[in-house]
């Protein structure tokens, strides 16, 4: 119902999607979606399975090119930027199905996350002048700090990512994303597979991250408790369209949202 009357953004938008459409052949996965992510906020993207949430994430991070529309990061148009460029501009993400580099240790995974902020090229890597050594050392130290920050402890640092328990893998993935020194963090179902206590802890951690690291967080989430607890704004997608947007309490009461999740009521 409210797809057309977008409320005015409350703060400066760090990211803005304008009429974004993504077609895969005949399937319109994302249809004319526009939304703003205000600076320093936590915004949730929700919707039933197949609503186009992850597709939208992939468009925002450059993995897909939108068929139509454009994406702005601050003042910069990043519609046609490559994923690595977008990361360099300060957008980091995690994945719904954890995508760590299984054969690398936790620390190495996080060090890869810092890639965009490092300068050593081919000859720097071969000849290793002092500034490269310093860069390597600092990157390693920073990686260990970040792993500690997301709540991991020493013996885990040097273990291979594939050998870590599921919960730890999620944490490493967040640390890896943070290593790219993002302004904006995109989390794709961060609480998938977590029990209620873990979800609660993560909710608090998201707020802490936002405040400690001056982040803006956009997350896809199915757990309504997390969504209602953490978000300042919620955007609802259904069949690729934005069907509602606004404060959590308002969105929760929206008949279109209820219909999308529960089906039409007959009475």
């Amino acid at each position, binding site marked *: 119902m409210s797809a057309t009357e977008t409320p005015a953004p409350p703060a400066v938008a760090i990211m803005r999607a304008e009429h974004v459409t993504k077609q895969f052949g005949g399937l319109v*996965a994302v249809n004319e979606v526009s939304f703003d992510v205000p600076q320093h906020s936590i915004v949730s993207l929700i919707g039933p*399975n*197949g*609503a*186009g*949430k*992850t*597709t939208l*994430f992939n468009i925002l*991070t450059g*993995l897909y090119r939108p068929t139509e529309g454009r994406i702005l990061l601050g003042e910069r148009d990043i519609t046609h930027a*490559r*994923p*690595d460029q977008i*990361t*360099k501009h300060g957008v*980091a*993400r995690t*994945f*719904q*199905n*954890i*995508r*760590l*580099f*299984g*054969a*690398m240790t936790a620390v*190495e995974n996080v*060090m*890869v*996350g810092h*890639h*965009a*902020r*490092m300068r*050593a*090229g*081919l000859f*720097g*890597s*071969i*000849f*290793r002048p002092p500034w*490269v050594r310093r*860069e*390597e050392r600092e990157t390693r130290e920073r990686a260990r700090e970040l792993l500690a920050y997301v709540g991991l402890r020493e013996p885990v640092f040097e273990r*291979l990512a*594939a*050998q870590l328990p*599921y919960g730890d893998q999620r944490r490493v993935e967040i640390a*890896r*994303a943070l290593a*790219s020194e993002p302004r904006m963090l995109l989390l*794709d*179902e961060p609480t*998938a*597979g977590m029990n209620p206590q873990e979800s609660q802890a993560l909710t608090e951690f998201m707020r802490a991250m936002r405040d400690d690291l001056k982040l803006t967080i956009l997350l896809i989430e199915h757990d309504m408790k997390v969504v209602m607890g953490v978000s300042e704004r919620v955007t609802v997608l259904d069949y690729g369209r934005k069907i509602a947007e606004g404060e959590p309490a308002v969105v929760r009461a929206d008949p279109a949202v209820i219909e999308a999740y529960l089906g039409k009521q007959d009475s």
Partner: protein
Amino acid sequence: MSELRAQLLEWRAAVTRRLPPWWSRGLAGLLIVFGIILPFLFPSSGGFLNATIIAVAYAVMSLGLNVVVGFAGLLDLGYVAFYALGAYSLGWFGSGFFFKAQVHVGVSPVASTLPGIHLNFVLILIAAALICAGAGAVIGLPTLRLRGDYIAIVTLAFGEIIGVLAVNGQSIHVGSGMTLTAGNLGISAVDSPYFPGIGSFGLLDLRPWYWLIFAVLLIVLFVNLRLRDSRLGRAWVALREDEVAAVSMGIPLVKTKLLAYAIGAAFGGMSGAFFGTYYTVVNAAQFQFGFSIFILAMVIIGGLGSIWGAVVGGLALGYINNYLIPDVLNNIPSKLGFNFQLTAVEFGIFGFLLVIMMVLRPQGLIPERRRQLELTAEIAAADAQLAEVPGIAGGGT
């Protein structure tokens, strides 16, 4: 069996703990010294030294291919192309082949009176590395959008194209009656390496040749080791492990992959240039598809992604191919009453070795730490556990 293995691992761990932290450096130093004095232990023109030289040159190629296949995970079946280009660099810049040109830089007094382009071998090495790096990047370009088996097919085709180009290059005229290659006739009378103070290398004393290729091996080894533990090395492994995650972490796909192709090709080219001068002829018939597989077998037998494995794999197959089969074991069938020589069935022997290897030790002789762990049951168990978690198995929306 498993108890025995556990016991062995425990001993190894205990030994590693007791060794001082500099032991690996010390061991490397010892190996280098051994490598330098090795030729004094054997006749200076014997079959063993000849095999050693070829084996070391193979190890250089194996290290190059290991960058592409082992580090970056790009299965390259056309590596012979860089052997060919390296050898032709030698043929072009170190012989009278381009007889209308008169270029002489740092060559022996004899060579500097001859027509053609004659550059010092070090310059040719650099030229071969640069030409092959460029060619490697060009060959890499069309494979950037491909993965796995499809990369293998495209690189295979490029290897064949270079091979056909080498054969038919004698019909490609580059002006003044000169052609691009000499086809199956071969570019002969190539220069021997010459260094002021040492003179030209001769084929009666193989020791200088050995030291030359040993020096190349050390350089290539050094570059490999440095790259493995660097920003670039991590980026390659990350791309190999998960391309989508890697680019999302800020790794530029095109640049990083092309660098892997270029560096791997450059090493192959250096080794190829050495082979050109060592065999004294650059003949198009040398550059067969089978050679690509041969080098790949070295990398795999050594341990995919493992630097020391690539060296050991290259040396092992080099010795088996050039010493063990032709010199040592060749007459065994006739002694047993069969009417053939062992060299006639050498590819059968390699095939057999590969199969045995894959059954007994699929991770290779000196496996990379990562691969070794990947192949253990522990990870399989962890994977099974992961698959049960909701949201892992399926893709997203």
